């Protein structure tokens, strides 16, 4: 299972987080070639067609580093949780979701993934491709 899928499963198992992210929690691969849309991820949109609070988990840069299982040839990898909401809904839901995701993932060992710790992120961003959807992200580093 891909790292982003394992982390998605951990987040999706938390009722508090899923109550905040009513549009769903997706691995990057789930959103397919063109990303979240009313076609690919219809549950991410309310009945009227506007975006609901949702998250995408995306694994990115990996670099060689001493790690827990292999001190000589281990890897550290960045995984980012992108949190979206409709641009007119504000940041309240996704910042609460951000805090919950941090509580679930920061300094936690996840089987099949490794040890996660929060290393950064950004608030108050927007995604112009989603009509300036509200966007926050939180970055984690995995040490395997």
């Amino acid at each position, binding site marked *: 299972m891909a790292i982003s899928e394992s982390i998605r499963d951990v987040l999706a198992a938390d009722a508090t987080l899923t109550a905040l992210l009513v549009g769903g929690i997706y691995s990057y691969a789930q959103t397919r*070639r*063109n*990303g979240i849309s009313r076609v690919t991820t219809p549950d991410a949109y309310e009945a*009227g*067609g506007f975006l609901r609070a949702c998250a995408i988990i995306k694994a990115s840069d990996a670099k060689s580093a001493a790690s827990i299982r292999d001190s000589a040839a281990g890897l550290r990898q960045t995984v980012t949780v992108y949190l979206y909401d409709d641009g007119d809904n504000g940041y309240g839901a996704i910042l609460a979701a951000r805090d919950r995701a941090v509580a679930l993932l920061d300094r936690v060992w996840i089987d099949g993934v490794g040890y996660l710790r929060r290393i950064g992120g950004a608030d108050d961003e927007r995604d112009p491709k989603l*009509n300036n959807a509200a966007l926050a992200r939180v970055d984690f580093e995995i040490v395997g």
Partner: protein
Amino acid sequence: MPEFEAWRDSERARALEAWERIREQPTQIVIRRGDVMLDAQTVRIELSDSAREDLDLRRGLNVTPGVQRAVVFGVRHHPTIADTNIERGDRFVVGATELEVISVITVPGEVQAICEART
């Protein structure tokens, strides 16, 4: 010399014609203006015949929407139909496409809203 007054005073007739054009190809839209959902309105939507994918990676990493221009036609000063209520920044969804108004033109009897449509 154009007869400006005659043109101006024909607004009622122009509104009637505009409404007939809308009725030939009507679409019901519910506009979201900030946090407020307006009542449903009947308009005509014409999409540009050209489209592109927004592939600019600087503008976001996770989404690649298809983008088109569209024009929404509504009425003004029709004798029986309420003026179409549409402003810059309004958004609405038709099928799988979200449209955002980027400019509004008012002409006698009619309002035309230029939109960016993202699917």
